[in-house]
C-alpha cells in the first residue's frame, strides 16, 4: 500500500485545504459550423457543443467521484467567434451568443468562453462587430465569457482597439449597472493571449489546437498556504529557500491531481488531453487565497514592500514543481491576483495597502495582470484605455501574457463596495488617477512591436 502518511496528506489537502480542480475546459472547434445562414450556424454550433459537452459533464462527475476530487467548473472554450461568425455582423453575433448560452444550459456547462476577437495588429469588420456587441451579449447571457487579444510581442499594442474597448467597458458596466457592472467581470483584454488557457474569462480554442481538447486548471492556494505555515512552525531555521522548496513539492502534488483528472476525462470523452495550467487560482472563500499565502510568508500587509518579491518566488516555485509533475504544461501558468475574487487581496485593498500601482508592479512577475480590479463609475474611457495600455505593455515587452479585467461600477466612487457574488467575490472600489492621459491615448494607432520581437 502507498505510505499512510502520503495518503493522509492527500486526504488533508482535499478535505481541509481546498484542493480541487478549478476548471475542466473542453476546447471545441467550431469552424465546421460556418454557413451563410445564421440560423444554420446557430443550430450546428448548438448541436456540436451539446454533442461534445454533455458527455464531458458526465465524465467529470464520474471521475470526480472516483478520485474524491471536486471539479468546481466544467467549461467549454470555442473557436474565436469573431472568425466563426465573420460576415454575419453584430446581429448574427448576438444570435449565436444566445445559442451558446442555451447550449450551456442544456448541458450543465458553467461557462462558455471564446466570444473572442484577436485584434493585436488590427480589427476586421467582424472583430469590430463582436466588440460592439459585448454590452448586449454580456448583459443578456448568463454563461458567455469574452476576451480580446489587443497586443502581442510580435505585433505591438493596438491602441485603436483599446480606445474602442474603453467605451465598451463603460457601456457593459451601464448595461449591468444594477449588478455593479458585473458584465465587465466576463471580459478580459490580453497581451499574448494563450490558445490553451482553461481559465475564464480568457479561455478560447486556439486555431492551432485539436478538434476537441481537454485543458485543466488546478487550484490550491490553500494547500500552498498550509504547507508554508507548517514549515515555518516546524523545527529548525526556515529560510526563504526552504519555503520555495516546500512550495515546489506542494505544487507538484496539486498539479498531479490535475494531470490525472485531465487524462481520465479526455480518455472518457475521446478528446485530446491538452495541458495543465499551473496557475494558483483563488476563490473568495477564506483559506483559498493567494493573499493569504503572502501573509503566511510573513508579509503582514499585502501590497507593502516585499510583496512583489514574495509573488515572484511563489510563482517561480509553483512553475518548477508543476512542470515536473505534468507531461504538458500551458495556459497562463502563473499565480492569479484577482482582487475581488480573493478575500485577502480585497481586504488589503480596503485597508489601503494594495493599490493599482502596486498591482501593476506585481503583474510584472506573475501571469494575469490587473484582474478583477473594481474602479469608480466616473472613470473615463480614456483612463481605461490608458490603464490597459500600461498593463499590456508589461506583457509585450516581457514576452509574457498580461490581461486587464476591470469593472467601472456605475454610480459608485472609490472606497465604496462592489458585490458580485459566487466565485467573482466582492471588493472595495480602488482609486485611480482619472483623465490625465487623454491626449496620449487619443492619438490612437498602434504602438509598434518591440525590438526584442525581431528574434528570427
Amino acid at each position: 500500500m502507498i505510505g499512510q502518511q502520503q495518503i493522509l496528506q492527500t486526504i488533508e489537502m482535499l478535505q481541509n485545504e481546498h484542493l480541487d480542480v478549478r476548471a475542466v475546459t473542453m476546447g471545441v472547434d467550431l469552424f465546421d459550423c460556418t454557413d451563410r445562414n445564421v440560423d444554420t450556424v446557430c443550430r450546428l454550433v448548438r448541436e456540436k457543443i451539446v454533442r461534445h459537452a454533455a458527455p464531458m459533464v458526465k465524465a467529470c462527475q464520474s471521475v470526480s467521484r472516483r478520485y474524491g476530487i471536486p471539479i468546481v467548473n466544467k467549461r467549454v472554450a470555442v473557436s474565436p467567434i469573431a472568425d466563426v461568425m465573420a460576415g454575419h455582423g453584430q446581429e448574427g453575433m448576438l444570435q449565436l451568443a444566445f445559442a451558446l448560452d442555451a447550449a450551456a444550459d442544456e448541458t450543465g456547462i458553467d461557462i462558455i468562453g471564446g466570444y473572442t476577437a484577436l485584434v493585436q495588429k488590427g480589427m476586421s469588420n467582424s472583430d469590430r462587430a463582436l466588440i460592439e456587441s459585448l454590452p448586449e451579449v454580456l448583459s443578456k447571457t448568463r454563461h458567455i465569457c469574452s476576451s480580446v487579444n489587443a497586443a502581442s510581442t510580435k505585433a505591438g499594442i493596438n491602441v485603436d482597439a483599446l480606445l474602442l474597448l474603453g467605451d465598451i467597458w463603460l457601456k457593459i458596466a451601464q448595461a449591468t449597472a444594477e449588478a455593479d457592472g458585473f458584465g465587465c467581470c466576463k471580459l478580459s483584454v490580453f497581451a499574448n493571449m494563450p490558445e490553451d488557457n482553461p481559465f475564464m474569462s480568457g479561455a478560447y480554442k486556439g486555431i492551432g489546437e485539436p478538434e476537441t481538447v481537454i485543458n485543466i486548471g488546478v487550484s490550491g492556494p490553500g494547500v500552498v498556504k498550509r504547507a508554508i505555515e507548517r514549515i515555518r512552525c516546524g523545527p529548525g531555521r526556515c529560510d526563504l529557500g526552504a519555503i520555495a522548496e516546500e512550495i515546489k513539492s506542494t505544487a507538484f502534488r496539486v498539479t498531479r491531481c490535475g494531470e490525472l483528472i485531465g487524462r481520465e476525462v479526455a480518455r472518457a470523452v475521446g478528446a485530446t488531453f491538452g495541458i495543465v495550467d499551473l496557475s494558483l487560482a483563488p476563490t473568495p472563500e477564506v483559506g483559498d487565497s493567494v493573499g493569504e499565502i503572502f501573509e503566511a510568508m510573513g508579509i503582514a500587509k499585502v501590497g507593502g514592500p516585499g510583496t512583489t518579491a514574495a509573488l515572484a518566488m511563489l510563482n517561480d516555485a509553483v512553475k518548477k514543481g508543476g512542470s515536473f509533475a505534468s507531461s504538458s504544461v500551458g495556459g497562463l501558468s502563473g499565480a492569479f491576483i484577482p482582487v475581488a475574487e480573493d478575500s485577502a487581496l480585497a481586504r488589503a485593498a480596503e485597508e489601503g495597502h494594495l493599490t493599482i500601482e502596486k498591482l501593476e508592479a506585481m503583474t510584472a512577475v506573475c501571469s494575469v495582470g490587473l484582474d478583477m480590479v473594481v474602479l469608480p463609475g466616473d472613470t473615463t474611457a480614456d483612463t481605461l484605455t490608458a490603464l490597459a495600455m500600461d498593463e499590456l505593455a508589461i506583457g509585450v515587452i516581457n514576452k509574457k501574457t498580461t490581461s486587464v479585467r476591470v469593472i467601472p461600477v456605475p454610480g459608485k466612487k472609490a472606497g465604496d463596495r462592489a458585490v458580485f457574488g459566487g466565485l467573482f467575490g466582492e471588493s472595495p472600489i480602488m482609486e485611480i488617477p482619472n483623465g490625465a492621459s487623454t491626449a496620449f491615448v487619443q492619438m490612437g494607432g498602434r504602438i509598434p512591436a518591440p525590438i526584442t520581437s525581431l528574434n528570427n
Partner: protein
Amino acid sequence: MKDYILTVMAQDRVGIVRDVSSALAGIGGNITHLNQTVMRGYFTLIISVEAPDERTQLEIRQAVERKGEVGEFEVSVRPYAEAVPCESCASDRFTLSMQGRDQKGIIARTTTYLAERGINVEDFYSYVHDGVLLMLAQVSIPSGVDVEEVQTGLEAVGGEFGLVVHLQHENIFRATSDVRSIIDFERTAL
C-alpha cells in the same frame, strides 16, 4: 525444495528477525518473501521460505521456536498453496479511509459490508489515538461492482458511527506521491 508460509508473533526485542532467519538458514531454508511489523510493542512476521524436501513442518517450527526463550515465539507453519489465478476476477484497487470517534463494531460492520460485495481487503491499518479512530484499507473492487453504489453504501455505514468516509481510487494517492509519469500509471499497477 518445498515452499512454506511461516508466521511469528512475540513481544518485540532486538534480534528477533536475526533469530528466525538464522534458524531457517540452519535447516537449509531460503527466505523468498518477508513482511514484518511492530504494533504497540508486539512483533509479527510473515515469511515465505523454501525448505529442503526432507524437512517437515514440525521441524521448521521447532527450529524457530528454539531460538527464543521458552514460550517466547508463537510460530505457525503451513505448506504454501499457490493462489489460483482467476481471469474473471479482474478488480480495481481503491483506498478506504474512515476517521472519527472510535466505537465498538466499526471494523466488523465495515468489513462485513465489503465481504458481502466480494470486495477483498488487501492491506489494512487502523489506529485509535485519544479516542479518535483512523482506518486505512486498500481494497480490491471486482469489475462489475458499481463503485459509486459502494461509495454511497460505505458513507452510510460510516454515517451510522458518525465517521467521515472516503473511498478513492488508489491512483490519486499515486499521483500525489509517486514521481513517475501519470502516463505510466496506465501501464503499471502497484
